[in-house]
């Protein structure tokens, strides 16, 4: 539910990192905070955690200015993955414009992935969103660990879904995080451009959108 206020020429979009507990959502956001160098970048807010586990949410605002002077904001949120925080998850998910689903690649975590995905579907419906039309990227994280489900097997499993190909990542080591984010930006752009005419109305084309919002900071550019 993009928040557009024409009087300030401001457009705020919301991206939510969803997934089972401990899959690496917060890690993804922390990596984005250090890897990204967009036009504008706010502070990473890590709200209440206990033993490294999110209790409310984390949030990182980034932004860019269009030629028309459009003030485009992206607020990146993580939800708490633990089962018991469902109502918080639902509140954070509401009015989302896009979702990154962070799955855990470890063999023993596949049931949790499925449960979390079902929960995402359910909660989207509850907040009036449709999983089939919402821009979404699916990332399988922790590829660095031994005993993860094979790459090809995962890709095959997801081949017939709108979210193929999957993004493989090792967020802890900063790998695949930007790539996942860029895939998401691409899908998000399609939707937002359709509604707000980013290209024709504000001079923001797909390439600018993705490049500007996911620009890597100097020290990581190598």
């Amino acid at each position, binding site marked *: 539910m993009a928040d557009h206020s024409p009087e300030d020429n401001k457009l705020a979009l919301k991206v939510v990192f969803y997934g089972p507990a401990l899959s690496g959502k917060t890690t993804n956001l922390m990596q984005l905070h250090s890897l990204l160098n967009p036009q504008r*970048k706010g502070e990473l*807010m890590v709200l*209440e955690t206990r033993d490294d586990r999110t209790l409310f949410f984390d949030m990182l605002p980034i932004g860019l200015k269009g030629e028309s002077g459009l003030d485009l904001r992206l607020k990146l949120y993580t939800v708490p993955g633990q089962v018991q925080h469902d109502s918080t998850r639902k509140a954070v998910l509401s009015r989302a414009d896009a979702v990154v689903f962070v799955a855990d690649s470890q063999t023993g975590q596949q049931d949790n992935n499925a449960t979390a995905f079902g929960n995402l579907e359910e909660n989207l419906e509850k907040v009036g969103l449709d999983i089939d039309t919402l821009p979404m990227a699916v990332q399988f994280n922790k590829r660095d660990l031994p005993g993860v489900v094979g790459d090809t097997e995962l890709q095959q499993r997801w081949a017939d879904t709108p979210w193929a190909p999957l993004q493989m990542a090792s967020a802890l080591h900063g790998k695949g995080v930007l790539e996942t984010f860029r895939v998401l930006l691409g899908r998000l752009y399609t939707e937002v451009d359709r509604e707000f005419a980013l290209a024709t109305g504000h001079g923001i084309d797909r390439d600018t959108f993705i490049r500007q919002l996911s620009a890597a900071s100097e020290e990581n550019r190598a």
Partner: protein
Amino acid sequence: MRNFEDDPTLEDLLTSDQRQRLNQMLSALCRKPVSIGKDRSNGSVALEFNLETVGWLSGGSCEQERLAVADLVSFLMMFIAKYRLAANLHHDTTEASYAELQKQNAALKASEARYRALSDQLQEKVDEQVAVIKQAQMDLYESARLRSVGQLAAGVAHEINNPIGFMSSNLKVAGDYVNDLRERVPDSELNRDLLDDFADLIAESSDGARRIASIVSDLKTFSSIDQADHTLCDVNDLLSSAVHLLQTEYGHGVDILEKPGELPKISGHPSRLSQTFYNLLDNAVQALKCRQQGAGAEGWSGRILAKTSVDDGGIRVVIQDNGCGIAEDIREQVFDAFFTSRPVGSGTGLGLTVARDTARAHQGTIQIDSREDMGCRVTLFLPIR
């Protein structure tokens, strides 16, 4: 309604009191006083939070000082905002959970009510079906009984009618012959006594034959094989047949007082009415017997009153006895089919049920007034239609 994630304003983050104090503290650190405000002024520095300008800092001795203070304020606001966001989110989710809970509660109540209604209906339906089955069973039993009694009675009546007919007429002729004999035999005391005795024997036999004929006629009335259709009935006739039949069954020791009133004929079901009268009289006889066998029966004599009258647009049939009455605790059940207070084998338990159903079939009512050890009065009311 604001969402928890809406960008906070300066007022959301700091009350004016807090802003005042913060201004004082910051000014104490600076060379010249600084002040946080909502509006931009000459030389003021933006206070940013989440890429959002929430206020402006003015005053101070130089740009550098203002920038340093603005940084500090942004840093502080970060923590205030964290708390605000968490609190707002908590508030939102708590409210949503509570609303959800109430919705579930309401749904639960609704479904509970639905199930209760369903189960009530089920009980009703079961009761209804049980009643239908009981009724059908009883009707079946009763109609079979009526039919067999009717058939038996009709058969017996038919078989007895002929012989009793020729016996009566033969006895009459025999009586005439005795008179003839008086002229022919020599007149002696011995012969006269013999012939007188002979005439008495024939007269007694004639009387007996007549009584048999009347029982046969009663039987025919009682069993009047009309089955379903209503015909015009003479209630007095039916009642008196039942009385006679009962007296035949129990011997003439039963004291039944008949008080027939002047009645119009009513449309009814003769065999069911007869059966009902018979059952009620039979109950009365049983009640008398029961009291007879009980204690304190000296000086008491059992009586049954069978009375008919017309009032309130109907025929009232009262059958009253001074027998043992109906005990208080079983009065509720006396109409239940198969309920019987008598020792097993001495009654079918259908007596009063048949009476009540007959009353209903005639759009009438039946009423029982009884006091234990005083007697019982059954009033059958049959409307004249």
